[in-house]
């Protein structure tokens, strides 16, 4: 008596179960955070993450009430957006550094979420220095 191998059934059920869990999760938890460039911020509502280059002058203290103030522009771009930030500033933070911050645009100023700054680790694969 030859029984049909249950292996195929198990695999099919597992795939279905995984997809179900997955869809359920994304439906409940919602999608992630969009990452955009500072130049794409105009009139954008809601929480986003922006990636760009820090532009000076840098004023204020990230732990004081007023927060740290600086500007960010697209990597390779020109137009800069003012940013106010509270919390841990990455170790490599300085004008010219690539960073990512999460927050919202409010009255033309990007208000960052606390501690959301990511400065990128030292680049191993920089192109030739100009």
């Amino acid at each position, binding site marked *: 008596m030859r029984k049909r191998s249950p292996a195929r059934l198990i695999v099919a059920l597992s795939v279905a179960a995984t997809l179900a869990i997955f869809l359920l999760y994304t439906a409940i*938890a919602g999608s*992630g955070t969009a990452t955009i460039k500072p130049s794409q911020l105009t009139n954008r509502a809601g929480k986003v993450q922006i990636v760009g280059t820090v532009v000076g002058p840098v004023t204020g203290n990230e*732990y004081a009430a007023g927060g740290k103030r600086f500007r960010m522009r697209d990597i390779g771009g020109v137009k800069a957006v003012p940013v106010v930030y509270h919390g841990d500033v990455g170790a490599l933070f300085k004008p010219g550094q690539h960073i990512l911050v999460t927050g919202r645009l409010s009255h033309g100023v990007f208000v960052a979420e606390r501690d959301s700054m990511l400065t990128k680790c030292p680049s191993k694969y920089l192109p030739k220095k100009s």
Partner: protein
Amino acid sequence: MTELGRAALVVCLGLCVYATVAGAIAAHERRRRLAVSAQNALIAALGAAAVAGAVLLTALLRHDFSFTYVADHTSRKLPGFYTFSAFWGGQEGSLLLWLLVLLAYAALAVYFNRIAAREVIAWVVPTLGLVASFFALLLVAVASPFETQPAPADGLGLNPSLQNPYMVIHPPMLYLGYVGLTVPFAFAMGALLSGRTDERWIVATRRWTLAAWTFLGIGQLLGAHWAYVEVGWGGYYAWDPVENAALMPWLAATAFLHSVMVQEKKGMMKVWNMLLVILAFCLSIFGTFLTRSGIINSIHSFTQSSIGPWFLGFICLVTAVSLALVFWRLPLLRAKTKLESVVSREATFLYNNLLLVALCLTILWGVTYPLLTDAIRGESVTVGRPYYDFFLRVFGLPLLLLMGIGPLVAWRRASWSSLKRTLWIPSAAALAVGLLIILLGGGSSLPGLLAYSFSAFVLASIVLEFVRGTAARRAVAGGGYLPAFADLVARNRRRYGGYVVHAAIVFLAIGIAGSSVYQSIYETGTRPLRPGDTVKVAGYTYVFRQLINRPNVGNHSEIRACFDVFRGSSSLGEQCPGKNFYFREQQTSSEMSIASSWLTGEDRDVILGGVTKNGAVFVKILVKPLINLIWLAGFVFVVGCVITLWPDAREERRLAERYGEAGALAQA
């Protein structure tokens, strides 16, 4: 000397291409001398690559800044240690390291298997040659380490964050892992191309896969420890794409290591094993593509470079060709036996594989999601930590439990009565631990509770295995318990070495659960701390004593905020977190203070956030229970892998006899 380096790389490329083309012709037309010639070409390619490597290394050690690579990654004041590791500190050098490791693996794997896997080797050589040709081509045409420039007075130096011992060991370990996965892949292709789809290719590559998997695991643990100790944000894994790039092939390789056991014992899951090894190899190349191309925003910034499209093209080629080969040889990959019961060891291996692959693919989806949304919507959407944490629990916790159940289930078909008998002790242990956790107040987190209970289950089942096995051995051979134990492990290295590795994974799980779910965090609010201020966290008392300023410590300046630590009334010494500022590189690094308790495995991490003008500080204090189990797990992992890898004379003899028998009648 750059001409010598460039010439060596061109020679290497030529040899790799020859190995590929000549090897393929020789395999197809069954020409012996040409096949040996192709094998020699691989070995010669290793020699040529070694010459190129020697040229680069010499230039580094001699501070020859006419080499653009040397100038970009070192400086005169850089300690020798780091000048050496600058070899793999940049794109071009790390590609050369990859090529060297690849050719070394290739030469050794081919040499050691040239008799036992004779029929398969003929096609393994051109496969390895093809992969090596790709990397050699990159080095010759796209990213050469031998660019020259008018020599500046001094180099740019190595970024201070990379100046620690981890830079010397973490990348080479990872490479030994990543690159090592090429070997089973090449043998799998060899098996498909030669039509010899029996166990030979698995038996030949078993140790190589295991070694690569071990290195990849250790490399990741080293990276996690590096992140924890040096980067100073209090964590060890951020689900960063570059971290995931190493985790995904490791998970696929873990699944593969398990499912090959089923193929060896039952002749089943042949197609599945082929697909798994292709997946593991493609993920390792994909991983290095992610890391190098700068295509994904991650905390590891790798700016857009031209190398991305090359890797992408190579991955597409490899995937297409290998899947076509599998499809072509499908008739030869028919299973000899079928799965008889959903409650059998074969079935638990299948479940283990499904869970591992599911986890691997969810991580892959999370990593590529930004790329896909960018392509479709024009802006990239990143998935956050909660996504990964969720799926790690959904797939990881059942996997943990399975580690304890699998070894106790019989092959083919396990009856419920047998299961009840073997599982009741581990189940009781799990329940007991679970109740204890709830009583101790840890019941607030269900994942944590489950993780600990399941860990108790697995550890109990492992201990039982050793105990029962020793008793059985003693019943047969007599003598004392210790000799019986040693004999048991020696005779069943794969099984008991595997149990030790499972124990390591359990320690890892306990450490991860404790340090994440049960950690305590304090963060200074709006009012900074002044000398004399006290902070209480998790039963510890921190008193801020003073701020120390050291403006000239070699190549950097330091600020340290010193705290006296007490538990109740007893003093636990001091902790002085701070920041360093490096003059030449104009960069700050955060120096987190870690106080470890080896008795409880707990860590107290203090991070200096900010310092105000009048010397008041903002700090973050993390108390992480059981985190040191993670690092202990690394050592146990190595021990287990060494046991499993240890050569077994008896087994070697049997294999030699098996393959020798068949070969005895053949011509040379």
